Structures are given as C-alpha cells and as structure tokens.
C-alpha cells in the first residue's frame, strides 16, 4: 500500500469512528426508536468540514500554497523587523489615542465588549505573573477575582466605603488570599501544584456559595453602588464640589482602561526588575535558581501575591460595574478561560496576553449567532492551538524550556 492511500484510509477510519461515537448520542431515543437520519445530518457536515481541512493540509504539505505562504512569511518578518527597530512610542501613542477616543465613536454594545476585553486583560496579565513569569501553574486564579469582587461588594454595602478607597483594600485582601494559597503549595511542583490550586479555587467558590450570612449564597449580592467622583464645578456661586456618580458605561470604560494601563505598566516594571529576573530564573530551573542564591520561597510567595493583586483590582471593578456579584461568575471555566488567554497569547509576553484576551473575548462576539457552539469551539480551538502553535501568538522574547519538561 502506498503512503498516500494509507493516509486516506486512516482518514476514512477516523470518520467512521466519529460516526460510531455520534450515533448512540443522537440515534437512540428513550421511546425505544432507532434512527439514523439525525446522526447522519450532523455527521456529514463535520465530515465535509474535516475533509476540506484535510485536503488543504495535504496540499500545503505538498507545497501547493508556497506561492502564497512564502511572501506572507516574508511580510510578517518584515513587519516584525520594522516593529522592533522603531521606537516603541511610535506605536503606543496612536494606540493610546485610539483607546481614549474609543467611547466617542462607538455604541453601547461595542463599549461593553471593550470593557470585557480590558477586564480580561487585567486578569490575564495578573495570571501571567504567576504562570508566565514564575512558571507556577495556577488553575484557581479566578478565586482572587472573586475575593476582590466580594470585598468591594461587602465593604461598599455595609460600610459605605467608596470605590477608590476600596481598590487598594481589595488588592490587599487578594494579596493576602494569594499568600494563603501560596504558602502550603510552595513545596509542590508542576501537576501537584495545578491540582491543589484548582482545589483552592473550588474551595473559595463553595465557601462563597454556602456562607449565607455573609455572601447571601447563590442569590448573590444586589445593589452594589457604582463608583463616584468628586469634581469641582463652576456654577453661578463660584467653585462648588459636586459628586458625580459614574453610572455611565463610558465612565466605567475609562476606569478599567486606567486599571489596565496600570496593570500593563506594573507587570512590565516587575518583569524587568530584579524580582522579574528571579521569577524567570525560578521558571527556567528552580534548583539552579536556588543554588544561585535566589530565595525561591519568598519569590514564589511574592509571585502569588502580585498576581492576586491584579485579579483583586479587576474583581473590584467587576463588582462595581455589574452592581451584582454571585458565585456563578467565579467558576473553574473562567480560570480556564484566563489561562487559555495567557497561553494562546504567549506565556510571559505582555502584548501576547493582550492579543489573547482580544482573541478570546472580542472574536466570539462576532459570531454571536452561533452562541450555542461558542464553548464547543472554544474548547476545540484550545486543543488545536496547542497542536499548531504551542508557543502562542506573540511569544515572549526571553523564554526557555523548563528543565522538568524532559522525559
């Protein structure tokens, strides 16, 4: 048998296998009837799509598309060279101008999406500190987001504290939570760490869900006050201080934009400081880092705390914007989503994480009419991305391979 026909036979086998998997789910009915039409109707669409992908894949292997891909690759390389050789402000200034002017030429829906993207950028960058810089796989990151959100919700409702005062308090609470989670897990590595952080995330969610007297359980907390600002206004009597309640979405947009910019700057400063180097050393080889005099205990704890701070800030904003929090918002799937952003974008790379957040939050909005299939496609894309581009969309410049990846 030639190699070519063998490949096609395997493809046919895979499609037959798929039908065998699909049929019991769609073709056996509880009333005792057996049908084939429904399973077939789904199957042939998948089979056709798979066939198209497979043909394109085979043709590109044979080099049919070289005429297109070669110049394209040259183009991206050229763009990359121009980007890296010109000063950064040339790109940052127009970008910032665009971000600042954004609410003036967009409608409510577009602003809503933008606010979502910015929240996830904060979360992604926070997780990036833990996973991307320090190499600690955290599957319960959303817990800090929850801690921040509930801290603001409770403090503002019960004690009437303002949003701005609550921001640092939320960050501090989240950092404390980060240390609490970090401390017992410091001796663990790799997969053990992953499962324990996952467990911590679940513990936080279950506690929020069940502590009725404090958090109102699954019903959530309603009526969280929006942020307000005291601004001097010139009225007929002279200069008067006036309280503006920032209820409008465009105000919220600017708040989260400021938080996101703060996060980007902070993570960047951390990354290129001594602390960032220590984290990267721990990521690349923990034992070697320790031998070189890095206090791995302290730096790992610090990574957890720092990562949690950004999660807490984003959480406080989330509570203020939704004016409602419930445990529903802090499930494992959210953690997976944030982790997927970090890894899709590129571990340890700030522009990468921003790109990842854009790709995972803004792109699905375009395909709103396929709402039902959204998570299905999300899962599929996550698996496929790992196959085709495991290093992410915009890989970090300095990145090695963890020494315990071998074997």
């Amino acid at each position: 048998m030639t190699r070519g026909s063998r490949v096609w036979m395997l493809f046919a086998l895979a499609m037959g296998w798929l039908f065998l998997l699909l049929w019991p789910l769609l073709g056996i009915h509880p009333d005792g009837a057996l049908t084939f039409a429904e399973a077939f109707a789904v199957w042939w669409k998948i089979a056709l799509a798979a066939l198209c992908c497979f043909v394109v894949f085979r043709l590109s292997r044979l080099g049919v598309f070289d005429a297109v891909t070669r110049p394209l690759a040259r183009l991206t390389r050229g763009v990359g060279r121009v980007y890296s050789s010109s000063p950064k402000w040339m790109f940052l200034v127009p970008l910032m101008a665009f971000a600042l002017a954004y609410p003036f030429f967009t409608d409510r829906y577009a602003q809503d999406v933008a606010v979502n993207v910015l929240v996830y950028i904060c979360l992604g960058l926070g997780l990036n500190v833990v996973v991307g810089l320090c190499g600690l796989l955290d599957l319960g990151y959303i817990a800090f987001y929850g801690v921040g959100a509930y801290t603001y919700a409770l403090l503002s409702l019960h004690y009437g504290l303002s949003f701005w005062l609550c921001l640092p308090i939320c960050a501090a609470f989240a950092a404390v939570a980060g240390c609490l989670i970090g401390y017992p897990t410091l001796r663990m590595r790799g997969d053990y760490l992953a499962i324990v952080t996952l467990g911590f995330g679940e513990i936080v969610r279950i506690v929020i869900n069940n502590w009725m007297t404090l958090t109102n359980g699954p019903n959530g907390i309603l009526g969280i006050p929006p942020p307000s600002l005291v601004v001097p206004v010139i009225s007929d009597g002279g200069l008067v201080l006036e309280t503006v309640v920032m209820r409008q979405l465009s105000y919220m947009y600017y708040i989260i934009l400021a938080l996101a910019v703060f996060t980007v700057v902070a993570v960047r400063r951390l990354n290129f400081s001594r602390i960032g180097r220590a984290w990267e050393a721990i990521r690349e080889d923990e034992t070697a880092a320790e031998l070189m005099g890095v206090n791995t205990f302290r730096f790992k704890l610090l990574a957890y705390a720092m990562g949690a701070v950004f999660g807490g800030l984003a959480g406080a904003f989330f509570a203020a914007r939704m004016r409602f929090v419930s445990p529903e918002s802090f499930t494992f799937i959210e953690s997976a989503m944030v982790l997927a952003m970090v890894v899709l974008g590129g571990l340890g790379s700030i522009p990468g994480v921003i790109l990842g957040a854009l790709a995972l939050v803004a792109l699905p909005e375009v395909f709103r009419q396929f709402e039902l299939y959204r998570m299905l496609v999300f899962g599929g894309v996550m698996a496929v991305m790992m196959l085709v581009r495991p290093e992410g969309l915009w890989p970090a410049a300095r990145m090695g391979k963890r020494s315990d990846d071998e074997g």
Partner: protein
Amino acid sequence: MDYFLQQMINGLTLGGVYALVALGYTMVYGIIQLINFAHGEIFAAGGYLGVIFLSFLTANGFMETHPGLGVGLSLVLSMGYCAMLAMAVEKVAYKPLRQSSRLSVLLSALGMSIFLQNGLMLTQGVYDKAYPTEFTHGGFDFGAIRVSYMQIGILAVTALLLVALNTLVFKTRMGKAMRATAQDKVMSALVGISANKVISMTFAIGACLAAAAGIMVGLYYGSVRYDMGFVPGIKAFAAAVLGGIGNITGAMVGGLIIGMVEIMAAAYLPMGGQYKDVFAFVILIAVLYFMPTGIMGENVDDTRV
C-alpha cells in the same frame, strides 16, 4: 453506632466510585505524565450512555423480563463506547503533543474537556436526564442498617472491576507491557513494546472504569447532567494524587479515603452537608503538605515531582 455503620456503607459506595474514576487518572499519569482533564467528561459520557441504553431497553420491554441482564448489557455497551471515545481523544489531542511541553498537553486536555462537555450538552440538552430506576427499589435490613440493592450492586461491580484490573495489570502480558512503559519508555520500546498501543490501551481501560462509575452514579442519584463530570473528576484526581499518583493501589485507597471523608463530614460536622465538596480538597492539601508525593507515592527527590 448503627448510624455510623450506615454512613460507613454509604462512604464505601461513594469511595468505590471515586476509586474507579481515580484509576483512569493514575494509569494515564503513570504512563505519559498527563492530567487527563477530559477523563471527568468520559465519566459523564458513560453516565449518559447508560441512560440512553437503559431507556431504550426499558421502552422495548426488555428490562421487565431481564432487569439484571439489561443493566449488565448497558454497562458493557457504555464501557465499550467510552473506550472508543477515550482512544479517539488520545489520538486527536494528546498523541501529536508527545514531544511538547507539559503545559501544552495540559491545555490541550483542558480544551478537550470543555469540548466534550459542550458536545454532550449540545447533543443531550442542558437539563437533567432521569434514569429509569423502577428496578432499583428494595434492599436488605440488618437491624437498623439498610443496604439497598443499588449499593450492593455498586459495591459488587466496583470490587469486580478492581480485581479484574489488578489481574490485568499484574498477571497478563499487556499489564507487564504497561508497567514497563510506565517505568522506561525508551527501554521498553527497545525490547519491542509498542508505546502507542500501550497508551491507547491504558486510555481505553481507564475509560471503561470511568464509564462504569458514571452509570453507577447515575443509577444511584437517579439522573445525569452534562456537567456532572467536573466535580467528581477533580475529586477523583485528588484521590489519585492523595494515594500517590501513578500508583494503582494508591488510587484505590485514595478514592476510598475521599469518599469516606466526604460522607463522614456530611454526617457528623456542623454544616458538613453544604461544605462536603470542600473536604476532599482540604484533605488533599493537608496530606500533600506533609507528604508531597502522596500516601503511597514513591519517595522521589523533589525535582521529579
């Protein structure tokens, strides 16, 4: 005392189910060092297939005449289905990533888990699906303790499967090949063991056990849900880690401990019922803090963990 014994039996039942799921995690981890997140979804798929086959048999009147055979048939069919599903998942999402970093495979597994969960939701709907459970009523009374037929069935099937797995792993050539591959992939390849075949087999066996657990949980609680795989999945993984991951006996012991702790906490602690899901993780964290490689884990140097 009676109450305690009753809870003991409940804990044993639940622990047995966790042990079955945990075995799938531990075997896959032992061979390719991967947390197979999709395993919880295989467990859910097993539960669903159980509903589908049982409803089909009930509608055709088969269950009235041969209830035992009907359940057995559904069990076997669902196990076979899940074995096929797990092998497909392995081929599509894990095999191409053998050489890549840990994190990529982990994320691929996470993606697969989300994919399967939503696939189940799309094909089966978002609502609970009820098991036809007319045949599960009744049980034995020992004094004040009541053991339902259901519990006896679950305990019997669990014990049977655990014995079968032990025989397979420690007495057959296939099991020897699996143990060899887990220990040293290169050496076992040199002596002519096909790693791919062994890995496929491992996934299939683990999925069979998970499917059986899925059906039994479905029968026990009377219904299944598309997202039922996640929480038992991570608890079972916690059980595998607790027992020392990669260790088959450890997974069984870990599963029993987690099941027991959960039931006992729900029975005896104040508010235990509401917080029962927390105890699995609390005990996991506590054990790992003092024994970083689990109860029966090998005493390896930190760097390998």
